[in-house]
């Protein structure tokens, strides 16, 4: 009995092992690169593809996506665009990365923010759109956004929105405590002290450490901590600009002048509504968020240029992104044609602007109609004049890391600790750099060598 049972046990487990080996072989097979479709194409292919029609999938979380897709399908009835909201930023990137790795399941067109584009272009997951003549569209977009979607002659996407940084401030709170609108960071810190001293429940702004904010602030301070040339990467988070920002921001941390309400939390929206958080240094896409999510503060908020270090106007991009064609696409020409319509056709951009988006296209940034808008939420201020002026003051030459998504995920572990401990931001940046160098070299890049 015993012997028999064990022998059948062996047979059973042998069968199991064979079955499992077959399954895992299949799984391994799945993860192999599906090869690159895409191939060569030309500008005329786009019209032909639109003429022929077909079905493509588009991943996006922008509020305007649905209306844009509807308008597109109306203009090109032969094309069927399946719109999928696969999650917001990192959630979508995770799914996209998994689909690319699995070799199937990725969309034809996907929304990717500027900071994540190098990560996907480096892994050769994106179609180089220059083959369809997209290089000629350069002048249609603001310089900084165009720089974010291109690498040399290669075009990896088209910009959709942009986020030149400005200062949003609660005028009601400022008036109540007699605070002047700060134009330099010194004045900003002074305003922070004055406000918090007058009412300890109020703070100049809230910041618990946000990688997107920190990198944009370093950008504004003239830093270029990340430089990538292919797989050769240089990380210097102690360069002049990084230090300039860290030393400046340390003053707010040391003084306990920053609210510890984490961004985008429920409490944050409440704080923006009741004056607890008096300013926001953020991208030009913020008005739509304020109007949509902080309706109580209608009339309180105004926009001013971002404070500077020495009085010379200078800004930076914060957030924003575009769309790209994924190499897995079985119909890259049609996908590219859709993308070109989405981010270049006036009809599509009109829909985008109606939904509160901030454009990346120069024609719209400079249009009188756009500049003349005076939303009631901002007390009738012509906010687009301030916001578009900031777009012109963005220094060029900024780069994100080819593994920025990972870098952002460990920001709290490193720089965030300086916030939590009221420590020196420079130490946090040094720790961030150390972990990024280790990670980059471990992933086969040549970092700081």
């Amino acid at each position: 009995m015993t012997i028999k049972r064990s022998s059948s046990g062996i047979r059973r487990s042998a069968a199991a092992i064979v079955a499992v080996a077959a399954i895992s072989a299949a799984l391994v097979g799945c993860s192999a690169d599906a090869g690159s479709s895409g191939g060569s194409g030309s500008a005329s292919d786009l019209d032909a593809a639109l003429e022929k029609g077909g079905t493509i999938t588009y991943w996006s979380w922008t509020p305007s996506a649905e209306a844009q897709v509807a308008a597109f399908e109306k203009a090109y009835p032969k094309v069927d665009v399946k719109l999928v909201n696969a999650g917001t930023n990192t959630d979508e990137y995770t799914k996209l990365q998994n689909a690319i790795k699995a070799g199937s399941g990725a969309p034809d067109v996907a929304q990717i923010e500027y900071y994540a584009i190098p990560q996907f272009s480096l892994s050769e997951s994106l179609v180089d759109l220059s083959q369809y003549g997209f290089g000629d569209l350069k002048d249609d977009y603001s310089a900084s956004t165009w720089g974010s979607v291109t690498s040399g002659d290669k075009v990896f996407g088209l910009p959709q929105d942009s986020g030149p940084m400005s200062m949003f401030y609660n005028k009601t709170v400022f008036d109540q405590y007699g605070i002047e609108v700060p134009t330099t960071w010194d004045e900003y810190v002074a305003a922070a002290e004055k406000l918090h001293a007058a009412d300890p429940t109020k703070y100049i702004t809230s910041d618990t450490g946000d990688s997107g904010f920190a990198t944009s602030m370093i950008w504004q301070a003239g830093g270029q901590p990340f430089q990538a040339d292919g797989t050769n990467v240089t990380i210097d988070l102690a360069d002049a600009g990084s230090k300039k920002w860290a030393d400046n921001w340390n003053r707010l941390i040391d003084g306990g002048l920053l609210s510890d309400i984490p961004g985008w939390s429920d409490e944050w929206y409440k704080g923006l509504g009741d004056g607890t958080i008096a300013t926001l240094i953020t991208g030009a896409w913020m008005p739509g968020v304020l109007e949509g999510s902080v309706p109580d503060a209608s009339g309180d908020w105004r926009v001013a240029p971002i404070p500077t270090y020495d009085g010379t106007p200078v800004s930076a991009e914060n957030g924003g992104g575009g769309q790209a064609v994924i190499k897995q696409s079985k119909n890259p020409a049609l996908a590219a044609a859709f993308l070109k319509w989405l981010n270049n056709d006036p009809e599509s951009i009109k829909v985008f602007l109606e939904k509160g988006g901030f454009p990346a296209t120069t024609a719209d940034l400079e249009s009188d109609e756009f500049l003349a808008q005076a939303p009631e939420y901002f007390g009738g201020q012509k906010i687009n004049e301030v916001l578009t002026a900031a777009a012109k003051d963005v220094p060029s030459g900024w780069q994100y890391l080819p593994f920025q998504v990972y870098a952002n995920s460990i920001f709290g572990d490193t720089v965030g600790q300086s916030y939590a401990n009221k420590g020196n931001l420079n130490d946090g940046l040094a720790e961030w750099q150390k972990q990024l160098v280790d990670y980059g070299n471990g992933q086969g890049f040549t970092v700081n060598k």
Partner: protein
Amino acid sequence: MTTLSRQQGLPIPKPSRKARRDWRGWAFVGPFMAVFLLVFIAPVIYAVYLSLFREQLVGGNAFVGFENYLLVLSDGKFWEAFLRVLLFLVIQVPIMLVLALAAAMAIDSARLHATGFFRIVIFLPYAVPAVVAVLMWGFIYGGNFGLAANINDFLGSEVITPFTREWILPAIGNIVTWEFVGYNMLIFYAALRTIPTELYEAAELDGAGPFRVITGIKIPALRGAIVIAAIFSIIGSFQLFNEPNILKPLAPNIITSYFTPNMYAYNLSFAGQQFNYSATVAIVMGVITAVIAYVVQLRGSRKEDR
């Protein structure tokens, strides 16, 4: 069973025996085996396979043998996460089980009015999806506009600060206890119901008081259930993920990306694309959990035999 072994004793020629051991049985276990292989064994084997390789963003995939395991064993982040959940386990699990035990005894004591009501109320949190429960607690814990803020305002000082380094673990423990007391109570209550009432009658005749009944009859009878509940809770603690991961946006610097081993594995693979290393972390953690659960079971059942 007897018939079967006698049959085996007979000198039946091999082919016919083989014919009798045909594949009919497989038809019954087949569906189960197929699903079991596909959803349980295959992922484990695949994880082991992954853990022996290293795929880089640049440079492709390479076989590295046990290098990933050596890295995990000397990885400070992994051990920090492990010690954190171990500390959590050592404190939270006993508190939760004692509370569950007390609730089960109270409901079983027959001295309580509306036992059905209490049973359902204590069990109810378990029926709330963990994500919803944690979001809800996140609001309650809010230090500026939440219930915590209201209590602090009332007391005039910062007494309740869940999102600080000192209090985050107790805050999570509180949520987990709230979620699972009812579940464990039900396990204990079910075990208490199986105790024959004659034992209570005999105890009463012998003059045993209620506390003597608890220590002499109820607790010994519950031993098996306690071991089971403890093992479930140990596994749950080592797999702690939902609660800290959902609270992370509210305490981004306190809850790091490697706060628990599971969060570490998750972030390694989904933020860092280090699937191989992540698989290794998961396997090492799985082995540790299995060993500890096994030791608890051995000790628990040994006591039972005694």
